[in-house]
């Protein structure tokens, strides 16, 4: 049981990857990619978690209270921003693809091969 959160991160990663590989729609693909990204938040935050500890915010708590790791939370914050930026760029690309080729299916993009 104590590895469940880590297993969740693995699950989300692989499920998201499945979505990316099989996607027939660029918007769906972009969302699957952000699902994959969420696996890293889960992994980081679970690693830094401490049983019975509070959040690392020391307002109105008695001195000496145990708190969870603040570093992984800072990393996860950066990660969230990265996820948003990638989503925004992929959506912008998807809009242009729709306009130029009248399709959102990545399998139909055949301008380059060989």
């Amino acid at each position, binding site marked *: 049981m104590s*590895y469940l959160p880590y297993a969740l991160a693995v699950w989300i990663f*692989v499920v998201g990857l499945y979505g990316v590989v099989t996607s027939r729609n660029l918007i769906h693909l972009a969302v699957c990619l952000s699902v994959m990204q969420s696996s890293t938040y889960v992994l980081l935050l679970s690693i830094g*978690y*401490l049983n019975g500890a509070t959040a690392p915010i*020391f307002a109105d708590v008695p001195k000496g209270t145990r708190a969870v*790791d*603040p570093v992984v*939370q800072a990393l996860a914050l950066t990660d969230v921003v990265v996820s948003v930026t990638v989503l925004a*760029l992929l959506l912008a690309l998807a809009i242009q693809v729709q306009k130029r080729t009248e399709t959102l299916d990545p399998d139909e993009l055949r301008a380059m091969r060989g």
Partner: protein
Amino acid sequence: MSRGLRLGLFAVSAAGLTALLLWGVAGLPDFGHYRGPYGFVLNASAPGERHVTNVVAAVVFDYRGFDTLGEEFILFASVMGVALLLRDVRDDPGRRDDAMRSDAVRMVGLGFAAVLLVTGLYVVAHGYLTPGGGFQGGVVVASAFILVYLAGEYRAYRRLTPTAAVDVFEGSGAGGYAVIGVVSLLLGSAFLHNFGPLGTSGTLASGGSIAFLNVASALEVSAAFMLLFTEFLEELSALRPEARS
């Protein structure tokens, strides 16, 4: 590669990848038994050293403040990138009318926008005391402006957020973060080294440079999200058939 072949290749590989990842995470300490030391050292020292109650904010804006500089510029670059990708549909906003909405919708929308704006500013200001900070508050502030748009006040929205002016905010937010770091250099200490007075823990006037960096970050994030929204909304209104006629 046919889709069937691709799925087969993926199925075999994904099974291997899953096994690999599970083998990897099995080596982690049990959930809830994090062993440190990095985070614990900071938890112990940050409140005393930096006079902030939110240690995450101290990590984000001070101990690992340089990461956040990179993060600001990731957001900044993606906004510039989206502007580059969607540059071909800039129609003249002056000629477009506001969408017809009932007065009730407008009033509710604008009321909400005001509430959001205040909330966002509060979240920014208290970032180093309680959860929140420049990023979260910045997004909320930006969404207050978006609500003006959604309430049907397109021209009001464009007046409130002229792209040229928001660009200036965006640039000065991201650049300001870096410039604060350079100020430390000019004062003879390390890049991003604290130079403000630490103040009293638990009050707004605490944390030294963290307060400045927080504001720069909020400026950058709110401008970035406003620009992102403007780009996408322009694109969509160009797609709408009625807007073309």
